[in-house]
């Protein structure tokens, strides 16, 4: 059946109208299992999905249009509202794109603090994902273990600049504030907490019969298809493709750290879950190394490069991408030499993953579709912009 036939009027879909032997159902955009404001129109045969058509745009706020009308510094708080689970990665990604455009060299100390904060954000993001995936599959307990640790990470963010989720971290050219002095004691406590919570989660889920039955082999995707659809990040690595921008196109100081890139095999929900669990441990490793380097820096080392008061980059195009928790998060900026970007395009990682959703869940059960959706970590904020 063609997609356009699927998106007929809402009335027809809700009046129990059936197409041959199939029943068309509408899930979302306001449904407890559809995270954020996602909507899927699915054609079902009993409980199996014959075809599914994701509908997006319910959280579209015109972020790119806003970007064209705000100056370069004013846009940083707007990037918080993309992937709100890891706002710091969005901030830094945008700042790095503008820095690349202007040719600004960020001081090393600021880069280390950025890396520490970005990896903390990555852990927080993955913790939310694993917790919510559990909740969606009926495993409620791990959610509490993980969300407590996420709150601890947010405590650090709050203590750094007063905001939990919308951090507005850093400035173009570096940072305003250094890490607070007792970061070390806080981090040591937090690291143990995260490891304990992950251990508990691992014990509760990984070898649990119900969990494995619900996740192994569900919504599997082949590496060839994944690359064709433009997958990046954990969803691509779960398919068995070893690709991580921190290793492949090392930006900032990532080439100095020793860490592994976990890779899955089957590209199913279970592999996506395992990748996230392993990545949290790798992030802990990176933070430890970065903090060690940070401690060796002199206390009065600069935190921000020399940046002109009004940011007016030279005319030209630039694209810069970083490895956000969901994958490649890139900013394309066309500058016309004024203090506002002429065109600003965001490349959200989950956008590319979610467009293959219909193909991914074809033939699966409705309940497995929910599991698949949770495992992709589709965040409506960055999907719709």
């Amino acid at each position: 059946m063609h997609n356009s036939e699927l998106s007929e009027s809402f009335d027809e879909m809700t009046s129990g109208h059936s197409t041959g032997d199939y029943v068309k159902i509408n899930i979302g955009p306001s449904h407890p299992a559809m995270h954020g404001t996602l909507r899927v129109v699915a054609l079902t045969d009993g409980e199996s999905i014959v075809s599914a058509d994701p509908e997006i745009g319910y959280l579209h706020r015109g972020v790119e249009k806003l970007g064209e009308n705000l100056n370069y510094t004013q846009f940083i708080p707007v990037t918080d509202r993309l992937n709100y689970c890891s706002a710091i990665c969005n901030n830094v990604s945008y700042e790095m794109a503008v820095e690349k455009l202007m040719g600004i060299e960020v001081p090393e100390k600021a880069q280390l603090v950025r890396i520490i904060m970005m990896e903390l954000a990555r852990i927080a993001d993955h913790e939310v994902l694993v917790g919510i995936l559990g909740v969606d599959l009926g495993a409620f307990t791990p959610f509490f273990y993980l969300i407590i640790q996420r709150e601890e990470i947010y405590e650090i963010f709050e203590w750094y600049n007063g905001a939990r989720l919308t951090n507005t971290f850093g400035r173009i050219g570096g940072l305003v504030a250094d890490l607070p002095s007792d970061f070390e004691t806080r981090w040591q406590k937090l690291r143990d907490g995260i490891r304990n919570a992950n251990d508990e989660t691992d014990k509760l889920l990984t070898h649990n019969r119900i969990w494995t039955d619900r996740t192994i082999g569900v919504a599997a995707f082949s590496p060839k298809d994944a690359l064709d659809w433009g997958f990046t990040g954990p969803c691509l690595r779960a398919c068995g493709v070893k690709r991580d921008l921190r290793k492949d196109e090392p930006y900032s100081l990532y080439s100095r750290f020793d860490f592994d890139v976990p890779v899955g095999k089957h590209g199913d929900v279970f592999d996506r879950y395992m990748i996230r669990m392993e990545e949290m441990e790798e992030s802990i490793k990176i933070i430890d190394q970065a903090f060690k380097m940070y401690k060796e820096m002199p206390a009065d080392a600069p935190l921000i490069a020399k940046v002109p008061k009004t940011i007016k980059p030279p005319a030209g195009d630039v694209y810069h991408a970083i490895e956000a928790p969901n994958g490649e998060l890139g900013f394309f900026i066309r500058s016309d030499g004024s203090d506002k970007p002429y065109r600003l395009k965001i490349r959200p990682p989950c956008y590319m993953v979610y467009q293959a959703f219909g193909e991914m869940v074809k033939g699966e059960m409705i309940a497995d579709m929910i599991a698949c959706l949770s495992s992709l970590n589709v965040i409506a904020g960055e999907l719709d912009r």
Partner: protein
Amino acid sequence: MSQQTLVSACLGDMVVSISEFVGDLTVEVSKNKIIHALEKLKSDPSLQFDFLSDVVGIDNLGLHAKKAKAPKKDEPQQEAAPDAGATLPRFEVVYLLLSLSSNKRLRVRVAVPEDDCVVESVTGLWRAANWPEREIYDMFGIRFKGHPDLRRLLMWDEFKDHPLRKDYPLEGKNEERILNYLD
């Protein structure tokens, strides 16, 4: 051989212009050759741009006028401000390519004049182009020939305009209906 010479050698006379700016390589090809050019870049053994990162639409309305009013000092690294002096095309579509084997990136640019807003769809080469092309149709009104399902993506179906065009106001258009309803 530098990446720039490799790309020019691969595309031959399809290249309209090629330039490098802050380390990013951009090549412009003519609109009717886009599929052929991308196919070549994808399959060329020395380049292998086999991954489509994103497709970007750009509206150049007013960009040229601004340039003419205040000509910039000729900074050496300036990207010849998409050929200065000449009239810019109203729209542009930019393909962000990536080579997974060499980790190199390339941008392929296509000029789209206002009176001929149709580009060949590249969904046949990469299915990843599906939503980005729908979004460009939605936001700029550029149509993609051969796209399997060219509908609006972010705006609703009844929406008339293309909001990322530069002549669409930031506060929106024809919103009186909503304002009257609130009263």
